[in-house]
């Protein structure tokens, strides 16, 4: 187990470097640059700008400097928000995105597991069909359609909830974005739970548990869920990938100052240090998170050995 974790951590470093190199390469190969707009700059000014940002050095020195920054986890100053370092921006925006993501995932877990289990207990019943059709709807309805529609109903027509903006952690502002973000997770989790539970409920150890005379509630909560939720646990890895694109959209719709919103702006502004910083940070987060999921998997399912 320890060796497995160590090996995975060692693999993480080159993978982050590959992702960052790819991103950096794309930025550098692209035509144009961040400082020239429509107008051509005078040569002297352009030279000064290049010198200031180290762009007059050969590419391998620039690349080496960027890599050094990443290994020290110091990404330098943003080009657009000049008096902030990339680390400042990460620290400021991460809590917003993390709050959205964690709340959305928790709600999705509760709702998804609940309906998935109910559907599995009575397969091919009305409840099963309705909840699976709802789940399919959740997978198919793009969040940028769902979000504005929720705003239209609950903010602009009923005036119940604020339509946008960040308002700190427990606040009414969170409800609509979290609902929008959690819809797709809910759907996936419900489907996964149903599939996993259907399989487990047929297995021998459930029959044993029933034969022992356990109540149906104990059979399901204590025995079946543990095996039936394994697919949900392994979904948590890919879920993070969905979360990244999900938060980008939700933060833009609801004007939230989160990581995703800044990432898009950084791309539109060609803010290289900020792009590299966010890409590196998210890659590290995704890889470590995937590792945690794998470790958790081994604890939950004793059949798995690394």
């Amino acid at each position: 187990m320890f060796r497995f974790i160590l090996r995975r951590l060692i693999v993480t470093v080159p993978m982050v470097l590959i992702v960052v190199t790819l991103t950096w390469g794309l930025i550098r190969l692209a035509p144009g640059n961040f400082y020239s707009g429509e107008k051509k700059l005078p040569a002297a000014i352009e030279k000064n700008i290049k010198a200031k940002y180290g762009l007059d050095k050969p590419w391998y020195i620039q690349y080496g400097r960027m890599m050094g920054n990443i290994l020290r986890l110091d990404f330098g100053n943003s080009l657009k928000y000049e008096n902030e370092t990339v680390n400042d921006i990460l620290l400021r925006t991460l809590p917003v995105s993390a709050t959205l993501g964690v709340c959305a995932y928790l709600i999705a877990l509760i709702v998804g597991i609940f309906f998935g289990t109910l559907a599995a207990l009575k397969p091919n019943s009305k409840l099963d069909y309705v909840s699976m059709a709802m789940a399919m709807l959740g997978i198919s309805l793009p969040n940028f359609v769902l979000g504005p529609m929720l705003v239209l109903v609950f903010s602009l027509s009923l005036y119940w909830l604020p339509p946008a903006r960040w308002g700190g952690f427990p606040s009414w502002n969170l409800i609509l974005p979290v609902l929008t973000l959690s819809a797709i997770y809910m759907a996936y989790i419900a489907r996964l739970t149903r599939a996993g539970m259907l399989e487990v409920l047929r297995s021998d150890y459930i029959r044993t548990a029933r034969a022992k005379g356990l109540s149906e509630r104990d059979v399901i909560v204590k025995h079946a869920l543990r095996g039936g939720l394994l697919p949900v646990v392994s979904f948590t890895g890919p879920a993070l990938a969905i979360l990244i694109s999900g938060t980008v959209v939700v933060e833009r719709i609801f004007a939230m100052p989160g990581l995703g919103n800044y990432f898009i702006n950084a791309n539109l502004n060609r803010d290289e240090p900020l792009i590299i910083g966010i890409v590196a940070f998210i890659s590290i987060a995704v890889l470590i998170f995937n590792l945690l999921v794998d470790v958790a998997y081994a604890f939950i399912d004793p059949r798995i050995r690394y």
Partner: protein
Amino acid sequence: MNEETPPQVPAETGRSQDNSTRDAASPALTPRGTPAAPPIRAREGDEIHAFPETAVGEGDVRTAGARAEAVAGTSLWRDAWKRLLRNKLAVFGMIVVALIILASAFGPFVIRKTTGYTYDFIPADSKLIQSFPPFTAPDGSFSWTHPMGTDSAGRDVLARVLQGGRISLMVGIISTLVSLIIGITWGATAGYLGGKVDDVLMRIVDVLYAIPYMMIVIVLLAFFGGQSPLAQIFLLFAALGAVSWLTMARIVRGQVISLKNQEFVLAARAGGVSTPKIIFRHLVPNALGPVIVYATLTVPSVMLSEAFLSFLGLGVQAPYASWGSLSSEGIQNIAVFPWQLIFPGVTMALTLFSLNFLGDGLRDALDPQMRKF
């Protein structure tokens, strides 16, 4: 191999690879279309061997083959088709998808002929350059001219939604094809060659799986996009295809591994068929069932990614429009002109919904053992 094809099979589709596969695999079990069967049935019988070895185990193949022989002319594809038709949701999905494809293909012509509007037609009369609600004439009375209303420039939303459907469906289908080509080649090569090659190829897939690729696609489109609207669409095909082949590669690899030790491959090898030919003419056609199923489910997910990128302003650009970019425009005006978002958004959701149901139904019909999600 092909010269040995039994002459009694009407190979009208030119699927010679299937024929050669058939007689090499299990000639005794071959369920053929009865001679009296209509041509279409014979063709389906012809294709049957593309499937049975793939998802089910050896024993199942035998029983399936035996059953198919007992009931004359019933192939596994035909069985699958029957199973699909029994699944109401899948049939619903199939009909809706067909209708939307037809509407996107021919709708714009019909609208141009009947009302004179095209997706980029802006009326010359400045009083018409504003957003009217659905079924409303400029004077507020009922009118059939704009069933989905007009957008802020006075353009017909229905024409734009149908035109957008062309782009969205095209991106979905072409990117899926790109992912199919990469995934099949990659997975089949890894699975057939095995050993070191397999290790390296599949390790690369594992590594790529863990990468938050959407971020790289965003960087790619932000920095290389915007050259020209047409180039942007091609960039989308390539980018989305290049990031969605991973699961396909895994599926094909698994199929090929389970197939490659069967007699028909041995026979082909003994007959001196080259390795690429064995992979692409003998193994891949036999792995088609799961590939079709997964491809059907890739189309909606690629369309969703395209819409997501277009929503961010990085995807399809004017004068072209997709459901994603139309929704993005609609969101700007949601408070006043909600129909600008609702129609493209709901059309898109309905399409994805139907495609997902169709894909699910196909999986249940073709490949009952692959049920996972």
